[in-house]
């Protein structure tokens, strides 16, 4: 167990370094931040001076080495656009993204599992067929289109919900939360649905398929033969055994919910790190882009690790053959 953890941590560091390197080499193709940082009247000399000051003239390996050395000390530099320390800016924005991501993930998991179980148990009912059909829409429509559609229906036509922003927020320690105000909760609904819809349909289809599979197995038949109640069979045995792949997928999807929040946040002007990243790209705000990509990589790495550990908890078989355990 311990050896496994250490091995995974070492792998994680390599993953982070590779992400950093790839990200950094991409920055050579996003253009020149100088144009965005000075007025059009700036002379050629002034531009050159600024470029020199920012270290943009240094060779790539040197820039990357400096970045890694600073990042290792938790220093991510100063945002070119906002002229503030990147870690401070990201720390300010992260609560908005995390709140959105967790509400979406909860929404997707809760509704996805319930609908999936329902569709599996009432396989031939017309409601479950309807649910399955509708779920196709969720899988196939791109996020930004869903966002715009929801805005159109609920903000423009019905005027029930706000079309953008996060509403009023309350500062709780270092965390700025939108959970405690009415406008904050209301502003959360549309983006959370937009962000979670794909995951919802994915989980639902997965749960349904897995559940149908499990319901066909011998031990379920034996359980029925033993005269157990439907409830005990369906939820105690069948659902529990479908959960291993669901946990994997949900865990990984939580990472992509945070990463894909970029699109949802842009559509809803949600002031989280995703929107920060998009604006940073337009501005060529390299320190923010680098820090964001590292952060997302870190999320994925940590989530993967947690998923692996959860396997141990859920699936007793893995505990027996722990030595050779390999997740995906």
């Amino acid at each position, binding site marked *: 167990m311990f050896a496994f953890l250490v091995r995974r941590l070492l792998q994680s560091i390599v993953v982070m370094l590779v992400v950093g390197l790839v990200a950094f080499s991409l920055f050579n193709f996003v253009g020149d931040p100088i144009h965005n940082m000075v007025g059009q009247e700036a002379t050629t000399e002034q531009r050159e001076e600024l470029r020199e000051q920012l270290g943009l003239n240094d060779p790539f390996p040197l820039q990357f080495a400096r970045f890694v050395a600073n990042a290792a000390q938790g220093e991510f530099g100063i945002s070119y656009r906002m002229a503030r320390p990147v870690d401070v800016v990201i720390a300010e924005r992260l609560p908005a993204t995390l709140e959105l991501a967790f509400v979406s993930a909860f929404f997707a998991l809760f509704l996805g599992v319930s609908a999936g179980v329902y569709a599996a148990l009432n396989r031939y009912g017309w409601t479950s067929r309807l649910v399955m059909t509708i779920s196709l829409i969720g899988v196939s429509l791109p996020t930004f289109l869903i966002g715009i559609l929801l805005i159109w229906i609920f903000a423009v036509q019905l005027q*029930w919900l706000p079309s953008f922003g996060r509403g009023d927020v309350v500062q709780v320690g270092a965390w700025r939360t939108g959970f405690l105000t*009415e406008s904050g909760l209301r502003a959360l609904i549309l983006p959370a649905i937009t962000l979670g819809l794909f995951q919802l349909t994915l989980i639902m289809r997965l749960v349904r398929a897995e559940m149908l599979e499990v319901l066909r197995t011998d031990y379920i038949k034996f359980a029925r033969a033993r005269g157990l109640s439907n409830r005990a069979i369906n939820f105690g045995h069948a659902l529990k055994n479908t959960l291993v792949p669901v946990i994997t997928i949900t865990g990984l999807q939580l990472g992509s919910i945070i990463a894909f929040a970029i699109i949802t946040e842009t559509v809803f002007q949600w002031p989280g790190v995703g929107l920060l990243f998009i604006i940073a790209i337009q501005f060529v705000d390299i320190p923010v882009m680098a820090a964001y990509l590292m952060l997302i990589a870190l999320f994925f790495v940590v989530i993967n690790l947690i998923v692996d550990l959860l396997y141990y908890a859920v699936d007793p078989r893995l505990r027996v053959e722990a030595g050779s355990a390999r997740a995906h």
Partner: protein
Amino acid sequence: MKVKAVMFGLLVGTALTGMQFDASAETLRFASQSDALTLDPHAQNEGPTITMAQQIYDPLVIRADDMTVRPGLAVSWEAMEPTVWEFKLREGVSFHDGSAFTAEDAAFSLDRARVPPSDYRNYVSSIEEVSVVDEHTLRITTQAPNPILPQQLTNIVIMSKAWAEEHGVEQTQNYAEGEENHAVRNANGTGAFRLESREPDVRTVLVRNDDYWDRENLPMEVERVVSTPVSSSATRVAALLSGELDLILYPPVQDLRRLEQSSDIAVKNTPENRTIFLGLNQGADDLESDSVEGENPLADKRVREAINLAIDVDAIQRVVMRGQSVPAGSISPTYITGYKESFDERPPHDQERAKELLAEAGYEEGFEIDFACPNDRYNNDEAICQAIVGMLGQVGIDANLNAQTRSLHFQQLQNGELDFYMLGWGVPTFDSEYIFNFLYHTRDGNRGSWNFTGFSSERMDELVEGMAGETDLDARNALLDAAWEIALDDLTYVPLHHEVLNWAMRSNVDIPIRADNSPRFASVTFK
């Protein structure tokens, strides 16, 4: 599980209780694409930053909504000598913190704005010295005669010296070194609005300054301004339609017709202070980006004429811009000193003549050339370029379009890598000299910093340097005319159109549209 169900119920419940948009008549909810980068009024010479600064701070000389110059914190000014200007300052003006505005504050602010790291220093680089004569008189000495100093001062706003010293912001925020100072998120100006709160990129709230010195002359109906950047155009429009916003900038061109048809929405437009054109590298002996060996086709004026004739700007206006452009015959925006209506008379679109000219120049077979465009800088920039590629193809010029993000486009332009490119140019000083200085003067490290065409004419350089120092208006206008004659004759740039800017607002809101795309909330009236 129960708790979760209750929470979900709560969420849905709050959703269904219906939305209230508590728009008290005096609140203006405003959205642009992006937020001000900083509140330090001298740190960033950039659209949204200027818009925000000009609500809170005043310059000595104000650019009114119709783009004319009128007294601001200075009531009058005159040139005592060609190089010495005296400004009489307004009495009885106070900053938002209650302290009185004096010549000390003005002198301090001009000095702050004209040294590095101020991003406005190039506007006031002609100033040699600013001296205080008495409490309400300021004397500005320039290195050389500078007739447009008052115009240039419209961009420089005045801070309180005492406030700046108290908070250690005597120097402009140093962007390059990533400095954040007190003035970045706090403000103390003399303007029509005072800052109530600011959360960068999220929300900035301004409240009316009831003691504003110009209260009598402005509607001043807005009590509160809530400014929220909304970067997605579709969302910005949706929020306007749903009544969550009162005024938006940059409504997308394709939505304008629908917005105009809505009875709740009003759309205003005006030609913008920006002209879009194509730059052609005529200076190089041979271009790397074309198929012609050993010579540069763009150096031949007949080729430039052919390109000009081949491009049907009316079709671009009709099809690509959906009417949202004004075809241009020169690269001068219509507002500026030195502009004449005759500049915008373009030779009619004529493919035959274009082919003839190419043949005369020795390119019957046409040629291939790389054509560079931004795709996120000007209205429909990439679509315009695609249309141009088609039009040039019909006369035999095979343009290979490379449309890319502005950061790359301008980087390559600055590096001198582009021979045939799109560029837009606005004139914040509202004077032709700004065009000649940056776009026509020989590129010498100081002047001509945006002249990537290799155009270089001694006569032009003389004229540009002459107009910088000529204080006699008639003599100066003669210089401008002479320079325009050279510029139009050479066809250094192939003009396309003046951009048209649009503002969309709820129909109960009215605001005079400004050609600089920078609304002044004090001018808003409610119906």
